[in-house]
């Protein structure tokens, strides 16, 4: 019975995801476009070619570093907000929650435009900086690393906030009271009790944000410059600019491997069935 219920989604996954992935893999291994997965001659030549270029390594390392940075930034930004939402009983929590959801509601194009207006040479931030005489000329904020990190952090903020808030909420408030009754002031209670207990939520959030950032396309493309090329943008360029579809497929396979790796970590450590507490 259960297999019957799973049939529709499985079919969808196979047709829409598994088969195209196999096709992509075959293209990267030398198969022609439109041919059935296993072509006569398969070789790893394209992978060797792609990975012997230092540019590829630069893009890959940059992608990983930026994704980690975004995850860390978001963890630092989201934690206080999550703490507030989980603990406060004020009537403003509903509004704050709504605000936390706005990155999901607003489309990526709108967000990008918004940040361009904020960060541009004649944008709001530069205007304020110069009006307050903090800088003499406009500061280059956009079309570089700063704008990409800001944009990526913004779009995935909600996915960091929710797991942390959920875990914090599930901590028995009596535990924090117990800690204080034993002589630990609030900051110490936070460091020795609350923070370690919320680690699972933080880690879950960071994994999600990392994965999203690795796969980000629009934001690095529009907010970044040519020195902030990330893996998805490089894939697109192989397809459209260099016209080397096999190389694009090879890079795409690498990206898929990264995503699967993250997924494996998630399943191993954060499987909800495991913790029966």
């Amino acid at each position, binding site marked *: 019975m259960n297999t019957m219920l799973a049939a529709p989604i499985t079919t969808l996954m196979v047709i829409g995801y598994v088969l195209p992935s196999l096709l992509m893999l075959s293209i990267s291994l030398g198969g022609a476009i439109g041919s059935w997965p296993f072509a006569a001659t398969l070789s790893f030549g394209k992978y060797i070619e792609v990975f012997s270029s230092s540019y590829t390594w630069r893009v890959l390392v940059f992608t990983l570093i930026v994704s980690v940075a975004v995850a860390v930034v978001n963890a630092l930004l989201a934690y206080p907000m999550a703490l507030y939402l989980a603990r406060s009983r004020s009537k403003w929590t509903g509004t704050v929650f709504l605000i936390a959801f706005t990155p999901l509601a607003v489309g990526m194009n709108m967000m990008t435009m918004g940040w361009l207006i904020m960060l541009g040479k004649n944008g709001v931030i530069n205007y304020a900086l110069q009006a307050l005489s903090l800088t003499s000329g406009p500061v280059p904020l956009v079309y570089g690393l700063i704008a990409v990190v800001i944009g990526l952090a913004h779009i995935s903020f909600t996915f960091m906030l929710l797991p942390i808030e959920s875990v914090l909420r599930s901590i*028995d408030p*009596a*535990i924090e*009271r*117990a*800690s*204080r*009754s*034993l*002589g*630990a*002031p*609030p900051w*110490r209670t936070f460091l*020795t*009790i609350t923070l*370690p*207990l919320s680690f699972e939520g933080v880690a879950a959030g960071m994994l999600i944000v990392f994965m999203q950032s690795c796969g980000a396309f629009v934001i690095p493309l529009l907010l970044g410059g040519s020195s902030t090329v990330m893996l998805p943008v490089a894939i697109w360029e192989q397809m459209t600019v260099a016209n080397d579809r096999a190389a694009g497929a090879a890079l795409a396979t690498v990206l898929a491997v990264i995503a699967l790796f993250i997924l494996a970590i998630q399943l191993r450590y954060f499987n909800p069935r495991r913790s029966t*507490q």
Partner: protein
Amino acid sequence: MRKSYGTTLAVEHIDLDIAKGEFVSLLGPSGCGKSTTLMMVAGFEVPTAGEIHIRDRRVDALPPEKRRIGMMFQSYALFPHMNVTANVEYGLRMRGVPKAERGPRVQRALDLVHMQGFADRAPRQLSGGQQQRVALARALVTEPDILLLDEPFSALDRKLREELQREVRDLQRKLGITTIFVTHDQEEALLMSDRVAVMNEGRVEQCTRPQNLYGAPATSFVAKFIGRGSFVDGTVRERSATQSLIDTAIGQATITRPQEAAPGAQVRIFFRPEHARLVESTAAAEPGLSFPATLRSLYFQGATTMAEMKVEVSEEPIVVDLSERSQLHTPAEGDRFTIHVPATRIHVFPAMGE
């Protein structure tokens, strides 16, 4: 040790003095303010007005971590990411006790609660009772001025609860530590406490030894909350130095306990089931209240048998203890009896609404 409390919205007015080494329970239905009071003593709630003193030190401006208290909670609240030893030594760590000293003190605390062999276990590997014992050790190891218990046994099953009640009480007596215990279970309160403060709607109705609460309830709420009994409305007919006469729908009651209601006042009289006896005839040997009643239903409870008696003038049944009588022969429903309550066992309270 002396304490006086203040006022918040949940707690209207409390004024309590607790002696050193005393075990006092705060007893009452939910919403009566007992937990809020405990939280004020602990420091998690701030009184709107009033003072709190622990051991001649005024503490109401101090945060919980500075008050030298030990607490236990209904959910045990052990730190799940630390093992038993780490949990118990937490308080010592926080107060800067050097490592060398911590070890033996933790050992002693675990010995006290009979959890010596569990030093390395994680909380999730322990049963509810074991966790609560560890929580007790954790609370006591820092030698606090006062122990605060917030319904610690509500989550345990009956046998375990009784076991832990005994252990905690014994330990408390041995250590002589002042304790405030919050519960909604009157049996528990009566069993463990030196004094019980019965609370209702933010006020203390009566705070005294358990025997007094049972035998001499100060208000109709206390009478109703502690133990069982029946109320009957009446009017005072006469009052003299030695006794009062009260007319009720079921008969005239003679009261020998001193009471304050003047003739003409509306009152409610109260008596407990075990003091209402079956008599052969209405010719009463002693003063009190006699009335006819019909047996409505019988409740066999092992050691006791209670009967619901119906009287003609009201729908409310009167509960009577028939344990002795039912040993001889089981009365049947519909049997008519005469019930007699001795005068010394009848309490008088003002009528409702005053």
